[in-house]
């Protein structure tokens, strides 16, 4: 499945019923240097829109909201030592957590890459 985006600037990729979640390239640019990431523990249940992680930059500490309802299966352990991975590869190695999906229909409300690009353009 191709990448999807939320209005809160998270990206989601679904592979074999597991969604990988991170923040968009645009979001990391806005945050500046990321210095700390609080990733959720595996097993944590999250509802759509609920706080799931915290990304802290030199400018601000920002909540990352669950883009879908489900259960966290893993937090990205690499971010503990290298939080700046979010700056260098936001939509790749800088993923924040993986989760199961309770309701696949929630995916329908997400934006595709082109829609997200338009959305971001509208913010500037």
């Amino acid at each position, binding site marked *: 499945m191709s990448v999807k985006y939320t209005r809160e600037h998270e990206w989601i990729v679904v592979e074999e019923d597991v969604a990988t979640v991170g923040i968009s390239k645009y979001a990391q640019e806005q945050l500046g240097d990321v210095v*700390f990431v*609080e990733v959720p523990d595996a097993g944590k249940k999250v509802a759509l829109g609920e706080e799931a992680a915290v990304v*802290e*930059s*030199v*400018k*601000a*500490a920002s*909540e990352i909201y669950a883009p879908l309802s489900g259960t966290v299966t893993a937090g990205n352990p690499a971010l503990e030592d290298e939080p700046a991975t979010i700056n260098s590869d936001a939509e790749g190695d800088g993923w924040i957590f993986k989760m199961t999906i309770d309701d696949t229909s929630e995916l329908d409300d997400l934006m595709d890459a082109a829609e997200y690009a338009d959305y971001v353009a509208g913010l500037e």
Partner: protein
Amino acid sequence: MPPNTPTTSLAWNNSKNKVAKTMRYLPLTDDDRRQMLAAIGVEDLKDLYRDVPPDALLSGPVDLPAHQGEIEVERAISAMAAKNLNAAAAPSFLGAGAYRHHVPATVDAMIQRGEFLTAYTPYQPEVSQGTLQYLFEFQTQVALITGMEVANASMYDGATAAAEAVMMAGRVAKRKKAILSGGLHPHYRDATQTIAGFHGMTLDVAPPDWKGEEDLIRSIDDETACVVVQNPGFFGHVRDLTPLADACHAAGALLVVVVTEVVSLGALTAPGDMGADIVAAEGQSIGNALNYGGPTVGLFAVRQKHLRQMPGRVCGQTADIDGKRGFVLTLSTREQHIRREKATSNICTNSGLCALAFNVHMTLLGETGFRQLAALNHAKACTLADKLDAVDEVQVLNDTFFNEFTISLNKPAAGVVDDLAALGILGGVPVSRLYADGGQMENLLLVAATETTTEDDMDALVRSLSEVL
């Protein structure tokens, strides 16, 4: 109120009030008031108070004497002040969380420099390098004496620091229950209840531990976020907290160690060396006077791994573009001016001037001086304990103590303290003063000795006790 009548109070209406005509401290004119009321569309000031129940509003002047000149006011206030028995002018054995220590004159001279005394909290911190430097030094001193890895730039006082420690433990452990030792100062217990209670923490409070026999290990379960224990305890007992720390960690809970007499850290094993995860302490004893109970300065130190959950501000050392040493405020992205209601804590300031006094005094002492000061305090308390134990009606309860211990008298301690005060001696703090329904603790008295306590003071106490018991 009639628009032309100036008044000293917003809430009562008395055109006969003559005091107001000469009241010098009200900046607003009648015109000012009229304009402000017009701007917000209110006819009468009283309309702003219509939500206040009538019986809660003053209906007339407060029963106070009419205004007087400065000379008369000074005379009246001085006469009132003279009714106090000043701890600096009498043999004093008061403690229970606030201790009379010698504050070197240098401390006052330093903190009264205009650069320090008048400076408000640095909102553009990096231009205030002097302030940041002393905060950095303060943090370093706090981390060293508590045996911890990180300390913040101070909190309001020991009691609010304890409350913040409980909330922090809740965030770290992701649990909601805190166990409070019966050796924790009752004021700290109350402050924790008031503050942490509103953050969803439930407190499990152990009964007063005046015998020093408490064992909290059995109370720890898988819901426990932290155990809060004071060392030396409120009743003076000194404990090895290592087994308790191990039990906490085995259950996934944190050990919070509270210290109300920070000089004790110059003699006792540091809380960090006994496994504490958070240390919340009162710093008044170093550099700060009794101040009628406040302001004082709270110390807060944690393990590095919990740094991001620590409340308050942190000052860091760095280098500028030329490689010169400089200081910055750091880790403030979780503070309330950036994160509002999601802030780690809503403690938004530090006790700057009191922290500076602590820093200056501690710098004057150095490690050797701090250890000597602690040894001297303990030696004085040992002498006092021996002298008191020799009085027939007195029994010293503690096997261990630092500079304060509990004695049992043959009658209620509160009355004895009053009798001693009449003889010009501040004999200590009756436990019933802090435990309202003291029951069997009614005869207990906390007595403290510091480096300021002389042998003459002790002999005067012993003599007077023999008189009043």
